[in-house]
């Protein structure tokens, strides 16, 4: 490559290395504080990048993004408070692991799968950007609609225990997701005239309330210290465990890549889809939700797989897939660069220098994450009577900080009660969250398709992508029903044997 010299010149600058390292450190720190999301950190860092060189500026923001993606999992695992929405799925198994004295193992699993997924995602960005961007463009509303349908069917696999309770939880999630403004007419739905609800129920207060508060209530209600089997910081992830999880990590990363490349779905959905997929395939299926290493690995692989891939539509099409990439787009523009096909023609060296930096960021994430774990895992050793008041403080601040609104604190506390009731009645929180996340996407894409098709239903079967998703949606339902009836048959056979 004739531009190699120029690429290296752009990349091999001490500023770039400092920017990436600083970005990852900021990201991990901010990501681990509930209510402070990577999005906010990126937005706040933006003005500082104005005076930096373009490559360093973008790498700082990308570093924050990637660090934040991982950082969210730290508090999810340790104190059942997801630092960012995307890590909500990680706590399903991460927190039980920490409770069993495997905090360090859970954190390491999250880190390794994050780094591997991040790496795979970067590879996809560098080598398949043009191809994946083309797929993204073919992903219109009807294709999206079927993708969401398929994703909704995986709720079945998350409804551990009772199918009825799982579906009930999902429907409640969908019902609550309807609160806010109607996307077509702008009319208010279920807001009861409260302007705080016009932008729908804020996701972070909901998450914090649903997961962190019930633990605190439970602790003070029982007044017993949860039994911890080993020193909480415990051992790390073994090579055998990493090997066992590898398939799920790679699959999760690919799910993340595909979802990241399509603008508008996001890391949270990717984490849940990856998690459910891993659970469906794993021989340890029944251990999911109770502290399964593979569960943490799959969830983190899913959300980190998105990180590199969201840059695909940004760089190759100039389309920001989420808020963070929108801010990064802003940073490009401040430096006189316009992401899109033209940038590949005019600033190819700069793009390759960025790619090198992005690859390096995965490595730095590994180093920074490892150092963070060393200190963060000590949190698991703090007596709960000291830890929980501090957690409660962060819950309140975190809920407030999202929109600077006191209303969100009340919302968070209300969801705390809901979460507590869920725990008491055995209603699973995961399907509730999936309903809440995917419900609006389902509705919006259904209505969008009908508007685009002018009421003509044939738009739902308009091409190979829709056919593919229709097939796997019905396949997934058939498979779940088959398994359900088989389990019932086995149960009745066992009963007959016992009776006989």
């Amino acid at each position, binding site marked *: 490559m004739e531009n190699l010299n120029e690429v290296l010149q752009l990349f091999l600058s001490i500023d770039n290395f400092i920017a990436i390292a600083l970005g990852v450190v900021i990201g991990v720190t901010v990501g681990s504080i509930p209510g402070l999301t990577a999005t906010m950190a990126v937005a706040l860092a933006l003005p500082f990048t104005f005076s930096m060189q373009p490559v360093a500026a973008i790498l700082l923001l990308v570093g924050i993004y990637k660090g934040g993606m991982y950082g969210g999992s730290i508090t999810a695992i340790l104190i059942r408070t997801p630092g960012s929405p995307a890590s909500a799925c990680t706590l399903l198994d991460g927190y039980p692991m920490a409770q069993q004295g495997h905090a360090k193992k859970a954190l390491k699993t999250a880190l390794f799968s994050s780094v591997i997924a991040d790496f795979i995602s970067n590879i996809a960005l560098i080598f398949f950007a043009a191809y994946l961007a083309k797929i993204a463009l073919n992903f219109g509303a009807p294709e999206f609609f079927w993708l969401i349908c398929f994703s909704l069917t995986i709720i079945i696999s998350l409804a551990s225990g009772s199918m009825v309770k799982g579906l009930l939880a999902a429907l409640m999630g969908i019902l609550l997701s309807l609160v806010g403004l109607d996307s077509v007419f702008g009319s208010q739905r279920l807001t009861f005239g409260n302007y705080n609800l016009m932008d729908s129920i804020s996701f972070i207060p909901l998450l914090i309330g649903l997961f962190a508060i019930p633990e605190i209530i439970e602790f003070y209600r029982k007044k017993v210290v949860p039994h911890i089997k080993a020193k909480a910081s415990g051992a790390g992830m073994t090579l055998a465990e990493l090997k066992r999880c590898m398939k799920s990590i790679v699959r999760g990363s690919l799910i993340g890549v595909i979802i990241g490349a399509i603008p508008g779905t996001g890391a949270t959905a990717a984490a849940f889809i990856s998690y459910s997929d891993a659970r469906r395939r794993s021989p340890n299926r029944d251990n999911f939700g109770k502290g399964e290493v593979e569960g943490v690995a799959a969830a983190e692989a899913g959300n980190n797989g998105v990180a590199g891939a969201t840059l695909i*539509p940004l760089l190759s099409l100039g389309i920001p897939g989420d808020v963070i990439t929108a801010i990064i787009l802003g940073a490009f523009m401040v430096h006189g660069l316009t992401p899109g096909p033209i940038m590949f023609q005019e600033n190819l060296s700069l793009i390759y220098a960025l790619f090198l930096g992005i690859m390096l960021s995965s490595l730095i994430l590994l180093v920074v994450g490892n150092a963070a774990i060393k200190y963060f895992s000590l949190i698991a050793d703090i007596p709960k*009577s000291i830890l929980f008041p501090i957690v409660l403080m962060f819950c309140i601040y975190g809920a407030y900080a999202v929109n600077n609104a006191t209303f969100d604190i009340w919302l968070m506390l209300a969801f705390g009660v809901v979460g507590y009731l869920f725990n008491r009645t055995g209603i699973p929180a995961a399907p509730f969250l999936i309903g809440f996340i995917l419900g609006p996407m389902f509705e*919006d894409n259904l209505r969008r398709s009908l508007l685009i098709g002018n009421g003509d239903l044939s738009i739902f079967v308009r091409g190979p992508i829709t056919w593919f998703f229709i097939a796997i949606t019905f396949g997934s339902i058939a498979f779940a029903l088959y398994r359900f009836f088989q389990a019932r048959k086995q149960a009745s056979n066992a009963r007959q044997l016992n009776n006989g």
Partner: protein
Amino acid sequence: MKKLISATCIAACGSALLISASLSTAHAADWPTGDVRLVVPYAPGGTTDVLSRRVADLLKDALDTNVIVENRPGAGSTVGTGRLARGGRDADHTLLMASPGHTIGAAIYPDLAYDPVEDFVFIQNVIDIPNVMVVPASSPYNSVVEFIEAAQDQNMAFSHSGVGSSIHMSGELFKTLTGSNMTAVPFAGSGAALPALLGGDVDVSFENMPTVYSHIKSGDLRALAVTSAERSPYLPDVPTLSEIGEYNLDQFVTTAWFGLIAHNSFPEEGYEAMQQALDEVMEREEFLDFAKQLGAQPGQVEGEEFKQFVIDDLARWQEVAEQAGISQ
């Protein structure tokens, strides 16, 4: 139970500390006497936010004080704007970056708790971004008139970034003025709307210039017209809608405008200091470069003229909202 009470107390005190740490106090004498707050009534990351942070950065030098950007998102821009309208002890050092959401929000929700004109002081319009009427490269229409003629018999879908956005309202205005058959297709932001346009799922959009500029340059989208009063120097060959001369389009002049406003108790010396500082900022090369990147023009109006501009904008959107059936 005691434990629970003490824990709650600790938590409450701690979070109160954290929350109050972000508030500042100031008294007016010579303006500014302390930090200046710039409220962005949207979440971090949007055009308003990025622009505000750029302006705040430059204002910091011009005013020789800290300019703190504060996001107060919610319900369009009405939560942040409503809060400013209520005043409070920092009102003499608080600015807000208003945008079309200020007038469109008031047009769609007539029951707002504030008056979008009388409750504020209008300092200066900082930047104007035109919208561009774009069709996919595969579209058979090469001019606005061709498009309108086709839209008399067949239904056209236009994408927008959300109900009440300037993109949405421009589409509705076009539909009303030209009598075209058009269906609004909502997306969650311009980023999500763009693939539908590039992929040809929708027939047209009235997108903000920075969103589509590179796609026009690369030939993936075709610009039929710009919505500003004058042609854009960035797309000199593309006519304005008002120069089409048919189908009532001479009335179609609209831009995504951004300007600084403050509570109507804002001190006179602050108003003057701000205008002086903004004049300085808007001549800075960094600002002009930034505007160029957005395909934008520095704002043209200030003070009373800016206020009149907002009054006219409001009246126009009220009419469009009424006709489109989106006035609540």
